[in-house]
């Protein structure tokens, strides 16, 4: 999925991993910031820790999100950031979705 290089405008071509709303929100937030703590992402997106953790694990497995655990003072903190691959995938997803909505309706219905 992340290595898909399909040009065109059908829904089946978009990255399903990013297409899920919660994961899209995570990716979008990490796209606009350099790095964010797990807690910050959780507060901004409005997910429970367990739910966010599950989504982050999937994005991490796909190589889209880097998870960095470190101590700040005596407190353990988890930082999330978008990898270069994740950034590229997000841009690609947005481009494909834009194509999907801007391309003529007939083209989409033909290919569907």
């Amino acid at each position: 999925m992340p290595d898909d290089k399909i040009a065109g405008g059908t829904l089946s071509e978009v990255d399903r991993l990013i297409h899920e709303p919660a994961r899209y929100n995570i990716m979008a937030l990490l796209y606009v910031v350099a790095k964010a703590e797990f807690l910050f992402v959780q507060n901004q997106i409005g997910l429970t820790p367990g739910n966010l953790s599950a989504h982050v694990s999937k994005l991490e497995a796909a190589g889209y999100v880097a998870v960095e655990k470190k101590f700040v003072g005596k407190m353990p903190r988890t930082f999330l950031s978008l990898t270069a691959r994740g950034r590229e995938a997000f841009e690609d997803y947005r481009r494909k979705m834009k194509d999907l909505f801007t391309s003529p309706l007939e083209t989409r219905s033909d290919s569907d």
Partner: protein
Amino acid sequence: MKSEDSLKALERKAYRSTFNDGIYDITFGLLFLVLAWISVLESIGISRFIGYFLFLIPIIFPRPAKRLITVPRLGMVEFGPKRKSRRRGLLWVVAAIVFLTLPLIIMMVGRGIPAGQTWLFVAVIGLPIFAIGVYIMDFPRMYLYAALFVFCIIQSEFLIDYLGEPLNAVLCFGVPGLIILVIGLAFLFKFMRKYPIQDPEASHAG
């Protein structure tokens, strides 16, 4: 599907969420109160120079407050290079304010120029620089505080003949200072209720 604009809006929303803790509002409230206190201290015979040390309170306050109150609740975030360069710009503006106004204040006080006139001069010099700082900081509420600050200085000069010192300063800086402080505290309590401290283990998930 979020457009380029909505990504910018998302970044701005994330950035501005770091201001919803009311810390900077409280800082401004303290700054106004210090201005009132300086006048009060001077009226009871304490040197204005000693009073100026009170400025350390609003200067020092934000950093530990952010570290102890905001970060454990909201989490840490590092914004992109654009914000970083804006932040560097802000530091230059703050440095410009200090280097332009501090020697002037010292010089004017040294020559025995009345405090009101000194502050009027500082306001004229500082306001444009201050406005640039607020623009760089991207914190809209602070425009209001900056405008209020200048208005209070001018009002203080007008009222000095009618009320005398320190009553004019208490009215012109103390009252707005208290109002801003209360606004800041309201933001802080709202923030603390919205973002309670979470279990570190849960925050460490992922």
